[in-house]
C-alpha cells in the first residue's frame, strides 16, 4: 500500500499497532484514537522500531507532536534524529563545501547534504511555533535547550558567546510572555539563559523585568527573575541602594502587593541588612492608611511587627500580630497567633 505524508514516502514500512496485543480486549484507559492519529502513530512507531534517523522520520515526529505535544518519547526520538543529521552534516561540511542558508521549512530539504546550521536553525523556528500553540508543556523548552547545546557544539566549536540570544531567544520569549506573562516554563527558560550565558550583568534582563513590572507590578514571575539576575550571580552589578529605591517605589504604587514586599524582604535577608532601617518606610503605610480599614497593607504591618521584635519591643510586636490575626488578615489567624506567641516568649 502506498503511504505518503507530505513529500515523503513511507510505503516500505510495516505500521505497528498503538496498543499492546495484551490489552486488546481491555477497555480501561483505551483511547478511541481518530483514524488520522492512529495512522500517523502507527508509522511513527514503525520508524522508531527501526531507529531510522532520517528526514522523513523527522517529518513524522513533527506531525505527531503537532497532535500530541506532550509525547516525550517522540521528542526524544526527534532529538536523536536531529543530532544525527546535524552531526553528519557537520562531518560532510568539514570535508566538502560550505552550507546554504535556507530558512526553515522541512519539505524544502534535500536529505543528505543539508548543512547543520540549516537543520538546527529550522529546529529553533519550529520549536517556537510549537511553543506558541502549547503554552503549558514540559518538553518544548527543554528540547530547545538541547538544540542550543548542539548549535554551540557543532556550529560554534563550543563557544557559547557566538550564539545570538538577542535574535534567537528574546523575540520568542516576548511573544510567549505577551500571551501569558507568568508562564512558568518560559520564565524558567529565561533563567536558564541567564545562567548558561552568564547574563547577570546584562542590562537587557533588568530592562525586560522593569518593563513588565510597569505593566503589572503584581507580576511575581518578573520579580523573581529580577531577583535572580541581580542577586543570583557571583558578583552584583546593580547598585544596591538604587535597587532598594526601585522596589520601594513599586511598593508605594501598590502597598498591598505581596510580590514587591517579598522582594524587599528577600533583598534584606540576602544582603544581611537590618530591617530596622525600614521603620520609616513602613510607617508611611501604617500612618497614612490607618483610617481606611478595608485596605490596610498586611505586609507593612507584618514588617512593623518584625521590626518591633528586633527592637525587643515584645509587647508592641505581639499587639501588631494580634491586630493582624483578629482584624486585618483573619484568614491567617492561626499563623499570626503563632507569631504573637513566639514574639512574646522570645
Amino acid at each position, binding site marked *: 500500500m502506498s503511504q505518503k505524508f507530505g513529500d515523503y514516502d513511507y510505503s516500505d514500512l510495516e505500521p505497528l499497532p498503538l496498543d499492546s496485543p495484551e490489552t486488546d480486549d481491555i477497555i480501561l484507559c483505551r483511547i478511541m484514537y481518530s483514524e488520522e492519529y492512529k495512522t500517523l502513530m502507527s508509522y511513527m512507531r514503525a520508524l522508531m522500531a527501526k531507529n531510522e534517523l532520517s528526514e522523513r522520520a523527522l517529518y513524522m515526529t513533527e506531525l505527531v507532536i503537532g*497532535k500530541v505535544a506532550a509525547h516525550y518519547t517522540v521528542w526524544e526520538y526527534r532529538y536523536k534524529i536531529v543530532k544525527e543529521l546535524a552531526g553528519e552534516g557537520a562531518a560532510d561540511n568539514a570535508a566538502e563545501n560550505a552550507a546554504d542558508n535556507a530558512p526553515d521549512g522541512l519539505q524544502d530539504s534535500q536529505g543528505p547534504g543539508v548543512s547543520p546550521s540549516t537543520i538546527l536553525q529550522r529546529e529553533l523556528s519550529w520549536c517556537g511555533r510549537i511553543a506558541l500553540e502549547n503554552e503549558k508543556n514540559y518538553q518544548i523548552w527543554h528540547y530547545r535547550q538541547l538544540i542550543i547545546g548542539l548549535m554551540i557544539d557543532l556550529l560554534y566549536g563550543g563557544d557559547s558567546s557566538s550564539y545570538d540570544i538577542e535574535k534567537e531567544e528574546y523575540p520568542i520569549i516576548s511573544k510567549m510572555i505577551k500571551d501569558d506573562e507568568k508562564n512558568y516554563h518560559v520564565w524558567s527558560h529565561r533563567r536558564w539563559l541567564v545562567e548558561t550565558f552568564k547574563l547577570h550583568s546584562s542590562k537587557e534582563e533588568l530592562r525586560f523585568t522593569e518593563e513588565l513590572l510597569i505593566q503589572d507590578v503584581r507580576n511575581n514571575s518578573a520579580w523573581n527573575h529580577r531577583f535572580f539576575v541581580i542577586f543570583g550571580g557571583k558578583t552584583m552589578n546593580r547598585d544596591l541602594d538604587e535597587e532598594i529605591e526601585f522596589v520601594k517605589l513599586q511598593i508605594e504604587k501598590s502597598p498591598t502587593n505581596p510580590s514587591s514586599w517579598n522582594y524587599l524582604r528577600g533583598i534584606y535577608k540576602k544582603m544581611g541588612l537590618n530591617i530596622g532601617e525600614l521603620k520609616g518606610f513602613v510607617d508611611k503605610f501604617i500612618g497614612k492608611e490607618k483610617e481606611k480599614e478595608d485596605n490596610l497593607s498586611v505586609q507593612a504591618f507584618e514588617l512593623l511587627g518584625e521590626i518591633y521584635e528586633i527592637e525587643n519591643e515584645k509587647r508592641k510586636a505581639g499587639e501588631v500580630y494580634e491586630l493582624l490575626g483578629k482584624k486585618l488578615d483573619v484568614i491567617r489567624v492561626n499563623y499570626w497567633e503563632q507569631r504573637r506567641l513566639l514574639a512574646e516568649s522570645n
Partner: protein
Amino acid sequence: MSPTEKLTDTIERQLEVENSVQDIYDDILEQGSDKFPPLHRKAHLRYTNLFLHRPLTPAFSKLDASHPWIIYWLLNATLLLGGTIDSEVKSQVATDILSYVVEDEGGIGGGYGQLSHLASTYAGLLSLVLIGDKEDFQKLDRTKIYRWLLSLKRENGSFSMHLDGEADCRAVYCALCIASMLDIIDDELIKGTADWLASCQTYEGGFSGEPSDEAHGGYTYCAIASLCILFSPSKVKELIDVDSLVRWTASRQYPIEGGLSGRTNKLVDGCYSHWVGGMSALLECVSGERQVLRRVSLQNYILCCCQGETFGLIDKPGCAPDFYHTNYVLCGLSMCQYYQVYDEKKAERQGCAFGYRSVRIGDGDVVDNFERNKVLPMDPIFGVPEGYVDWLRATRKD
C-alpha cells in the same frame, strides 16, 4: 488592592474570581446553613466509575503519553470517596500497567511502546498499589529499575524525567517515591539530592522547580515530600528555612475564596488544595505548628466552589471537571479532615517515608468534620489513601 492602584491583569482576574466566589457564598448564606452543599459523593463516584468502565473519546489523545496518570487519578479518587474497585477493573489495571513496562529500562512508560518515564512509573506503581496487586508489583525488576534511576541521576543530585528529559523537583519526587516503594534507596542514588532540593527554596520561602525559578505549589509539595522520604521531620527542619516556608504556605490561602493559590499573585485553583494543602500537613510535622492553613475555609472552598455541576471536581467556578482536579481536590479535602503525626517507632521499622499516621480532626472549630463529607485519610508522602503503601512494603520484608 489600593484604590489608587492601576488596574492590571493580575488585579482584574483576581477580582473576577473573588466576585464569582463571593456570589456563591452569599447565595448559600441566604438560603440558610442547611443548604450548605455536602460532598456529592455519589455523583463523583459516578464520574470516576463511568471512565473506569468505558473507552475514552478521541479528545483524550492529548493524554496519550499519560496513560498511567489517568488510571491513578481515577482509582485514587474513587477510593478516597469510599468507593471500591471491582475485580474486573483491577485486572484491567494490572494488564494495562504491565503493558507499559519498558523491557530494557525496567520502568513504566506513558503508554505502550513509550520510553520509561519517572512520572509514569510513579503513577503506574501507585496504580498497582491501589489495586493491592502484590504479585505484579513483585514481578517488577528492581535491579533494572535501580540502574535506570541511576542513569537519570545528574551530577548536581537531581534526576531527569527520562532519557534526555527535563530535570526538576517533580522528577526527584517521583524517583524517590519509586525507590522508596521498591526499597532500593542507597547512598549512591541519593547523593547530593537533599542539598539540591534545599537549593530550590526561594527568597519567598516556597520551592521552585529548579534552583532560582519562582516558588510554586506543585514543586514545593514535591520538594518537601522528597525531603520527608529521606529524613525525619526534625532533620528536615534543619535543612530548610522553615519559618519562611510556613509564611509562604500560609500566604497561599486567600481571604475571600478560602482556597489556595500556587504562587504569589496567582489565582486559587482547587488542585493546590493538595499540592499546597497536602504539603502543609507535612509542614505541620516539620515545624511543630498546627494549622498552618485554615482548614475550615479550604473545605468550604472545596465544597462550595470545586464541585462540578453534574459531577467531578474542578479548579474554580465555571471550570469543567477533569480527572486530575477530581483526584487532587479530593486529596486536599482529606487534608482538611485529618492531621498527620510522625510515629518514630513506625519510621524506625519501615523508613522515614512510612512514619506518618493520620488523626481525624474532631474539633468543630478547626473543621466541620461531618460524616457526609468524610473522605479517607491520605498518606501524606505518596499521594494515596493511608495504609496502601505500608501494606506493600510490609509484605516485601517478609
